[in-house]
């Protein structure tokens, strides 16, 4: 079977790959590109462990075909930290012990980032609704919600500093 040649952008870098028509974007990321941060939890859109953004929209990569990535901009958990510097969401997850086994964590971080990008001051209820597509079997969610809230405060502080510096 001949594959489909796909040119796309992942975390800002141009990437080319060949995949089978039925292969999901999650399969491509994990098995072909070795970007194994996105997790394969359920494969049916229920758990959110595979969350990535495509053209800025948060999606389950297990329910996107690899071929659909042609010409799109994909971001994954691997694109969240700035080199060695963790994103505030990542540091706050550690600080608040918002993970135990960790399998759900990349998905929560990507989904929380998508939330903060459109709403940097979410209420607890907004955080819970925005993360309703992500399941965690370990933490009981409270610590995750607190970590996201703390990260939002941190992100707003950093934005404030950046703005002051630009004057």
């Amino acid at each position, binding site marked *: 079977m001949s594959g489909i040649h796909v040119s796309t952008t992942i975390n800002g870098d141009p990437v080319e790959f060949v995949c089978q028509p039925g292969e999901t974007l999650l399969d491509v990321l994990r098995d072909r590109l070795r970007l194994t941060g996105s997790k394969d939890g359920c494969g049916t859109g229920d758990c959110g462990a595979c969350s990535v953004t495509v053209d800025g929209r948060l999606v389950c990569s297990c*329910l*996107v*075909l690899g071929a659909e990535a042609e010409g799109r901009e994909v971001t994954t958990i691997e694109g969240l930290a700035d080199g060695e510097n963790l994103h505030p969401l990542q540091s706050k997850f550690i600080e608040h012990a918002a993970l135990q086994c960790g399998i759900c964590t990349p998905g929560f971080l990507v989904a929380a980032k998508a939330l903060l990008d459109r709403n940097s001051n979410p209420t607890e209820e907004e955080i819970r609704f925005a993360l309703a597509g992500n399941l965690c079997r370990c933490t009981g969610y409270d610590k995750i919600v607190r970590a996201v809230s703390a990260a939002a405060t941190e992100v707003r502080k950093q934005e404030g500093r950046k703005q002051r510096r630009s004057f």
Partner: protein
Amino acid sequence: MRYAAPTTTREAAALIAKAKGRAFVLAGGTDLLVRMKIGTIEPELVVDIKRIPATQSITKSATGFRIGAGVPTAAMGENNALKKAWPGVVEAANLIGSDQIQNRCTIVGNLCNASPAADSVPALIAAGAKAAIVGPRGRRTVAVDKIVTGPGTTSLKKGEFIEAITLPRPPPRSGDAYLRFIPRTEMDIAVVGAGVSLTLGPNGVVKKARVTLGAVAPTVVLVPAAARAITGTRLEDVALAKLAAACEAACNPIDDMRGTIEYRTEVAGVLARRAAKIAYQRAGGN
């Protein structure tokens, strides 16, 4: 399996019509990819329609709205004009799954998947939505309530697909609403759903109404008797009781882990009453 992403409607229709085995349209893939994974379908061809410009936008005109078949339901929620004109349709579409699902899933996929519990369908039928169909023999437009024929089956002919859904421009003093009942607040399949769309006369009396129910019969049902029960009224208690009774009478549900027949039937009446009150308020009645 083959994958194709044509850039014109004509090309897409030709590809589907010429397929040797089963061809499926891919919109958001939130039903299709799940069914492929669990093995209930084995497509020979998957045609991704999202590269066709006509499927990608929501447009407003003098006659109403046109929502392209590739538009994710999240984009409906981001469209203020659409939300203002058809709040019930938008809230129904934005009940589907999580943010991750809503950033992909479409109302046309929700319709064509033909589940009796599809959340956007009761609201679309109540709103009098139409489907713009394209196929090997050209174009036709059909009321949304004529598309689903039973669980998992539609009236679309071989080679046909839906390019867009159109919603009329609501007359003055109109309102719509959709409510569903699920055991939790997010991410579950409707036990019952109820859609109401109505238009008031200048005196606040209901002039025209459409009432629909989901998940209580093999397809979403339009309940004309329920609409009659509230037409000519200001939703007084007697009218609402008649509406609920008409809805209960229209139910033909299944018994399953989500709800018994008795339970679903009663909840259908309750939700229809509540949805009617919200639609009435939105139409400016009080």
